[in-house]
């Protein structure tokens, strides 16, 4: 019954080769609006390459990425012009990099980092932009007193929250995140995870999140894809994959988690 609804994103037979090395092999899956999908696997399994190919950061070797656009029906992202891809990336998509420095403009203030994305989609009224930026800093728990400071003066956790605000200000429907909590202290991670969890729920965001941390996946994801050597070896409901893993590799991953 709910499956009559068309998927937001369809990845079909996506492969990526580096010379003779296979980074991703024949990856196929669908994602629906409001769904959070985590791609898990060890480093070198091809997770980040897959994310980069789907989000049009890197060209794929073969396969298609079909996206349900807001106004122009389903489009193959990999066949879009660079201008079309850029428009998609600054309106309907958000891309949160593992290192906030890759996703922020370090030379402009925190407020400008958020406001800039609004201006890119046509906002012109300074007061509105400032108000929107203030609202978002608030939402990601950054003190308003810091609005005119450069991101370089922020801690790692704050930079990551700022990057999230910058991405979400244009109300995207799909967000890509690569290890969003990587490199942060555990207490800072918990705060960020809680924030992400609330945001995806409130905004009904669809998200594809790459992580090697199964605890992060359990907390955020509706569904998991387990990758090994560029291939999806297991997929399904998050709690089912983690509590009753079927594939030998998934069993190895799950049994390797330290119990506290």
């Amino acid at each position, binding site marked *: 019954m709910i499956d009559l609804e068309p998927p937001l994103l369809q990845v079909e037979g996506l492969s990526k080769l580096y010379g003779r090395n296979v980074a991703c092999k024949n990856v196929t899956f669908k994602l629906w609006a409001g769904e959070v999908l985590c791609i898990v696997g060890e480093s070198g399994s091809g997770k980040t390459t897959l994310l980069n190919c789907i989000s049009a950061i890197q060209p794929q070797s073969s396969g298609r990425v079909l996206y349900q656009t807001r106004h122009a029906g389903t489009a193959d992202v990999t066949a879009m012009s660079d201008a079309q891809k850029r428009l998609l990336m600054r309106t309907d998509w958000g891309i949160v990099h593992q290192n906030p420095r890759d996703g922020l403009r370090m030379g402009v203030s925190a407020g400008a980092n958020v406001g800039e994305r609004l201006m890119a989609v046509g906002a012109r009224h300074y007061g509105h932009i400032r108000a929107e930026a203030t609202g978002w800093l608030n939402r990601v728990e950054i003190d308003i007193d810091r609005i005119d400071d450069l991101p370089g003066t922020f801690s790692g956790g704050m930079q990551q929250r700022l990057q999230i605000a910058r991405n979400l200000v244009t109300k995207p429907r799909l967000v890509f995140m690569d290890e969003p909590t990587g490199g942060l202290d555990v207490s800072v991670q918990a705060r960020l995870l809680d924030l992400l969890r609330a945001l995806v729920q409130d905004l009904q965001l669809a998200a594809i999140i790459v992580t090697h941390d199964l605890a992060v996946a359990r907390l955020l994801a509706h569904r998991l894809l387990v990758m090994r050597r560029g291939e999806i070896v297991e997929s399904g409901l998050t709690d089912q994959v983690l509590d*009753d893993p*079927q594939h030998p590799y998934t*069993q190895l991953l799950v049994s390797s988690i330290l119990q506290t």
Partner: protein
Amino acid sequence: MTMMRVKDLSKSFTLHEQGGVVLPVLDNINLDVMAGECVVLLGPSGSGKSTLLRSMYANYKPQTGRIEVRHEGAWVDILSAAPRMVLNVRKRTLGYVSQFLRVIPRVPSLEVVAEPLRNIGIEAAAARARAAAMLERLRIPQRLWSLAPATFSGGEQQRVNIARGFISQSPIMLLDEPTSSLDAQNRAAVITLIDEAKARGTAIVGIFHDEDVRRRVGTRQFDVALARPT
């Protein structure tokens, strides 16, 4: 009215980490659960009670058989349904109270309990009011409501978990030892909750360690050991 049907269910575990040993646990289980009854799963430890209960929530993945749930007027086999459908069934029809609370960092107890209501579209203030009433019934002191349950005692965490499980009044509920670490007074509060759910027509399947609880809430017993592969 039948609310849930377990049909020809078999489940074994293959332990790839241990040389591919296969452990058969459930073999050809058939069980119907009606509205307003509480089916108590029986059997010695290791007989597969928890495996059956977790399979009925699609938390475990049986190899063969069906688990059909009456969901918004239609039957859904949660073993073959798409993950999105299973999540929808869990949100609106099928509740599960596990033995332990899986704590979400930083989220206050009141929000933990209110969340299932928020997920079905009930507005925040109303959800919080119902969560508060539920926490009160389960005798969680008000000073703890604004705190994340991570630092609570085992019994307090279990009661927060029960509050979260019972708050949305799911038509079907699966209970995995919900009273295991509770004292007599709190156990009585939980028994009352279960009795009220039955009176509303909730179909319940549960594992109860305590003989007295079993006798008081159970309307029927299902011996998993008798259906066990030999």
